[in-house]
């Protein structure tokens, strides 16, 4: 386990060391092989000439020995004798070398040469002894024998040399043929090893630097602020993997942190916006309140002024004016009350009477009013305020006001088992179905805009407001209906459910 860890290539250093050493060892191996190869070749060439060198040695000493022998026999000079002895000894040594080095290669021939050398030394020694003993004839005879033996030796050596040359030539031819092949193959081997080394180094370098390049690209992207770069994938198991993992983690955590910051900022912005809205609303509310206050000034001021007018007309004794102003004041008083305060039908009828009196003053006797109250108990029935007056107002203005010779408005109140029915009829210009439909359509809308009433004619509340309030109050849509024929008049019928009326009574009391 431990050694496995030690020797696995899990660090950049080990990888680099391994690949470069591998390439180096391979190259080294190839060049070492080449060197051994060529030195072997040289050795072989050497060995080809080795025997020739020994032969040369033998020949040299033989020549020298023979020459010195001849000179000694001629002159009897001891210098020559010494030289002769020296060379004949060396000749024998060369013969032994010959036997030792080449004895196995060509045993018979070498043996022959050695025998010849022996014969040569024997006869030359005999010649020397004879010369010393002044036996000139024997000396000469032996010298002649030595001389011819020397010639034989030379010839034998020549033969051997020739033979050697022949085998050498053949050997050399074979060798050079092979060496040519070896040379070619070695060339391939060198190129191969170079390419192999290059590929190994390239591969390892690429494998090591590729993740670093990826990391650096990713880091550059991040430095530009782009955290959405890809994860850096590293397949190796070295420090770069550790780096890449750490880098990826770092990137992830920075991204998460930034995300958290973003969402926090977003909520803060939202909060701010809400606050701003609230503030705006408040301002708007305040404005509305102010506007409301402003619009409230008018009726109260008018109301008080009217009262002053009533008192003035009473003082002057103008009864009609008094009556007229009192009516105006009554209508105003009734109109400025809060809309969510319920009233009795009687209050409503009174308000309508006052309004109609005003209208009579305005339109003259062109307006006739017929009241028909069948069940007087109904007058105590509660209902939302300002319901009848807008309807009557509508009849006056749109129904009769547009006719030249006036008209009649009749109001009838009666009670059935379930409903209290209030009917307001006029014989004015009437409306077509579409207009009625449009009115109901308008009333069905959730938000009823505060349409500004037409100046001069109305008291300020539209029909659709009436419809809506009625529907809300009685919680049923079937509470008011219009029936009209163009040119013949309009009939508005309000059906007040009696049970509900009681309930709502209780409710209103509660809330009130």
């Amino acid at each position: 386990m431990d050694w496995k860890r030690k020797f696995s290539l899990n660090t950049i250093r080990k990888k680099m060391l391994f690949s470069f050493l591998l390439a180096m060892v391979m190259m080294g191996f190839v060049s070492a092989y080449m060197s051994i190869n060529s030195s072997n070749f040289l050795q072989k060439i050497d060995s080809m000439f080795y025997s020739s060198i020994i032969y040369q040695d033998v020949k040299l000493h033989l020549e020298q020995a023979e020459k010195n022998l001849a000179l000694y026999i001629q002159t009897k000079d001891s210098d020559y004798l010494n030289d002769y002895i020296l060379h004949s000894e060396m000749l024998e040594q060369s013969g032994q070398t010959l036997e030792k080095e080449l004895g196995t290669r060509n045993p018979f021939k070498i043996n022959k040469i050695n025998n010849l050398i022996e014969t040569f030394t024997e006869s030359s020694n005999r010649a020397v002894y004879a010369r010393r003993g002044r036996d000139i004839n024997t000396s000469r005879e032996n010298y002649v024998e030595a001389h011819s033996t020397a010639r034989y030796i030379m010839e034998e050596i020549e033969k051997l040399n020739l033979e050697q040359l022949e085998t050498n030539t053949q050997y050399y031819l074979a060798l050079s043929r092979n060496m040519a092949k070896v040379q070619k193959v070695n060339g391939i081997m060198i190129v191969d090893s170079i390419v192999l080394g290059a590929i190994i180094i390239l591969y390892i370098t690429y494998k090591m630097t590729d993740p670093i390049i990826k990391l650096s690209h990713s880091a550059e992207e991040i430095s530009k602020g782009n955290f959405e770069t890809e994860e850096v994938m590293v397949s190796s198991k070295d420090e770069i993997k550790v780096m890449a993992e750490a880098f990826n983690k770092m990137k992830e955590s920075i991204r998460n942190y930034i995300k958290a910051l973003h969402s926090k900022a977003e909520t803060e912005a939202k909060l701010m916006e809400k606050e701003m809205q609230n503030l705006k609303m408040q301002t708007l509310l305040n404005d509305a309140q102010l506007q409301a206050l402003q619009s409230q000034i008018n009726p109260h001021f008018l109301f008080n002024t009217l009262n002053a007018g009533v008192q003035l007309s009473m003082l002057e004794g103008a009864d009609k004016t008094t009556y007229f102003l009192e009516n105006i004041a009554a209508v105003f008083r009734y109109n400025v009350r809060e809309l969510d305060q319920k009233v009795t039908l009687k209050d409503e009828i009174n308000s309508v009477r006052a309004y109609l009196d005003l209208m009579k003053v305005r339109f003259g006797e062109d307006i006739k009013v017929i009241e028909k109250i069948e069940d007087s108990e109904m007058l105590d029935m509660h209902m939302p305020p300002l319901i009848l007056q807008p309807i009557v107002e509508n009849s006056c203005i749109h129904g009769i006001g547009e006719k030249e010779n006036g008209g009649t408005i009749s109001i009838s109140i009666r009670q059935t088992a379930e409903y209290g029915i209030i009917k307001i009829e006029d014989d004015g210009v009437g409306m077509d179905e579409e207009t009625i439909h449009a009115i109901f359509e308008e009333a069905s809308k959730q938000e009823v805009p505060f349409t500004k009433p037409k100046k001069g004619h109305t008291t300020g509340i539209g029909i659709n407001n009436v419809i809506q309030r009625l529907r809300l109050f009685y919680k049923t849509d079937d509470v008011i209906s219009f029936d009209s024929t163009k040119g013949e008049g309009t009939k508005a019928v309000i059906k007040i459910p009696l049970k509900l009326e009681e309930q709502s009574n209780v409710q209103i009391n509660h809330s009130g």
Partner: protein
Amino acid sequence: MQNRSQSGQNKKFNILFIISTGILVVVLAVTFAISAIYSKIPEEDSHKDTLSHESPKDYKYHFSVIMYQLTDSFLTGFSSGAAEIAEKGDVFIEFINAEDIEEATKNINIAIASKADGIIAQGIYDEEYITAINRAIGKEIPVVFAYTDAQGTDRNCFVGYNAFELGKSAAKRTAEAIAEEGEVALLVQSFTQHQHDITSNLNILGFMDVMENYENIEIVAIKKTNQELLSAEDITYEIISRYPDIDAIFCTSEKDTIGAAQVLIDLNRVGDMALIGTGAARTILEYIGNVIHVSFDMNAKEMGKKSVESLIEIKEKTNSNDFIDIPFDIITDQNVYKYKK
């Protein structure tokens, strides 16, 4: 997606790397092996070469065989026979086929100087040659003469055919070929013109001994051929031109037989002249039955065997024979197929 394709690319890259590395490693290994093998081959060759030489200690004796101008067929037979016995008797034989008598003499001297254990040589009467032979015998190197004998030496033994008998046999064959009537010539091989050449003299004597019995046969010429190139051709031409009616020629050597046969073919005398030859060379065997009437085979192989055998016997002091007769055979068109094998 991109990551996956990237990892796929990586995988491809890895595979490419593994494949190319594998190929390169294999190439490296193969080239290394080839290189190593080729660097070794010549060494093995030379090693084989040295092995083909015999090692020195195995030989009991070292004999020098010095022959003189023998034809290839005779020498091949002789040396194969000698080698056969030599191998059995742990003897190393050095064969020398000398071109001239000086070379032969020199080789005898070399054999003496190089302390050969024995010499097998031809008996040739040449003064220097005989001196050298005697010097060898003086140095206690036994000498066996083979094929031809010579006088004037103390040679230990002669191994060869009976020349007198061969002459006689040849005469009988000649007479038979020419129906005991006509002119006959003799071409006798001689290594020297000296009268001491026993073998050729015995040939002639044997031939003449028989021919005396045939009254109608006349020996018109007895010529000694020498070792020069085309010697036999020249002499055959001479004989035929001088004696155009000649009926038969007897040659005592292989070389002469081939030469004479060639002349008969050239002169268109095949058929009307009988040629009695010597030797069993391929050409002679071809001519038997047409150009050549009969040929005498000297049994070269047997001669080689007996020579070495007798020399070994001399070395071991068990030989007492002075002459070992190698019987000759007569090759006729009846038995020529045996030789052609």
